[in-house]
């Protein structure tokens, strides 16, 4: 069963069409890269998947659950790590995870151990009682990932997960994402670092001005074109 199925989705803001008739399937267990230049419609597509944007046309299914008709079941399966840090400023770092799990219907006693495990795994356990504003950029990025994983989603959506982090942390995050994917989690990733997509993603979709211009296995795309992903990307997205 596909983890994500976008069927002719369209998102318009007035006369501007941000996402224009996109259809794609991401199979369960895939590591999928969704690439495109700034303003191409990547974040709008993500917002439509997670319910932050209402579709103008088309439909989205998450593991067979329609995101409109069966929205509770669909959202329960998704973990989102957004590009911006949007933590609750009144909660401690540990409570950010506990409360997020609560919004997903999980009681604190059910997720306490998992929260501690995630904080430990992401190297921020010693900061558990602190305010998130005291964390460094890299630590905030780890907290974003930990929060996305607190309710054990089957699909992890990452919007520019390594933006603004140093090389060491980027490699660390790559290892972690690979490990999650090996454990069966489907990963949908947007990134500006094309080497990141080249290294991590089994399949890629490239979007330009709201339209999908490529959708195929990363290796096939690279072998067919005989170039690096960066060159293919530039060729497909340059107007």
């Amino acid at each position, binding site marked *: 069963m596909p983890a994500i199925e976008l069927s002719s989705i369209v998102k318009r*803001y007035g006369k501007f069409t941000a996402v224009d008739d996109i259809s794609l399937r991401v199979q369960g267990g895939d590591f999928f890269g969704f690439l495109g230049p700034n303003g191409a419609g990547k974040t*709008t597509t993500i*917002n439509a998947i*997670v*319910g*932050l*944007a*209402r579709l103008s046309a088309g439909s989205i299914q998450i593991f067979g659950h329609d995101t409109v008709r069966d*929205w*509770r*079941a669909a*959202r*329960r399966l*998704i973990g*989102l790590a*957004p590009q*911006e840090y*949007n*933590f*609750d*400023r*009144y*909660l401690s770092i540990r*409570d950010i995870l506990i*409360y*997020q799990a*609560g*919004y*997903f*219907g*999980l*009681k604190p006693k*059910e997720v306490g151990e998992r929260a501690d495990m995630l904080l430990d795994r992401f190297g921020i356990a010693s900061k558990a009682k602190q305010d998130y504003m005291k964390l460094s950029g890299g630590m905030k990025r780890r907290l974003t990932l930990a929060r996305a994983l607190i309710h054990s989603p089957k699909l992890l959506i990452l919007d520019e997960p390594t933006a603004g982090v140093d090389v060491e942390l980027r490699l660390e995050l790559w290892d972690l994402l690979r490990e999650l994917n090996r454990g069966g989690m489907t990963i949908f990733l947007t990134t500006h670092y094309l080497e990141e997509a080249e290294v991590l993603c089994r399949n890629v979709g490239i979007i330009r001005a709201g339209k999908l211009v490529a959708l195929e296995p990363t290796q096939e795309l690279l072998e067919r074109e005989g170039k690096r992903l960066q060159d293919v990307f530039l060729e497909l997205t340059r107007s």
Partner: protein
Amino acid sequence: MIAADSFNGVAMLTLIKREMVRSLKIINQVIWPPIITTVLYVTIFGLALGSRIKSMQGVSYAEFLIPGLIMLQVIDSSYAECSSSVFQGRFMNSIQELLIAPMSAAEMVFGYIFGSVARALLIANLIMALGYFFVHTLPKDWGLYFGAMIAVSMLFSALGIIFGLLAEKFDHLAVLTTFAITPLVFVGGVFTSASQLPPQIRNWELANPMFYTVDAFRHSYTGQSYLPLWLSLSVICGLMLIALGTALRMAYVGYKLRT
């Protein structure tokens, strides 16, 4: 155990708890100021100047003042809690934590409202205790005390959500407080009885929704009211349902929440 398909009660309780945590984190901003202001009102108007005023509705001026001051703070705190929490969530994007969760618009709206009612109840009961300490007065009808207070708090919490969604900047949140709530509450019977006002002004009071809230709530203390109790309670409940319906509708369509 994961959220039920029809109702995610854990999410709503989590939001209520979050709102209470928020209030306690900013206790010097939201809990102590109304208490200190009330003590000053009671000391200056109730005890110092009030001794020169003969009884109002059959009780001393200080006893008359206490329920009005409770209502003043319940209204102010309920509106402030929801409007600032919702707007801040939008401003910081932290409200997205709720919007991506399997949580309905109703669970979100009632989570904010009940969290705000809890804060209003805390403030009201602290003032009630102060009233007992300074003026030796307590509610006579506890059912009416809590019922009217909760209904009024829900009304102004729902208004807070509406304005928290409409506002484009923090300054907009103050518009309703500065130009409507504060003046209308002050002339709505907190400090004076409608029966003491000139007849032409008295008629204007009937167009002031705050007058009904203060008049009904004061009945829980004095056992008397200017208007029939059923009329005031009907107005409060009617306005509450309209505000609640509007807040629910705005949350359901995702007004300024979902694009």
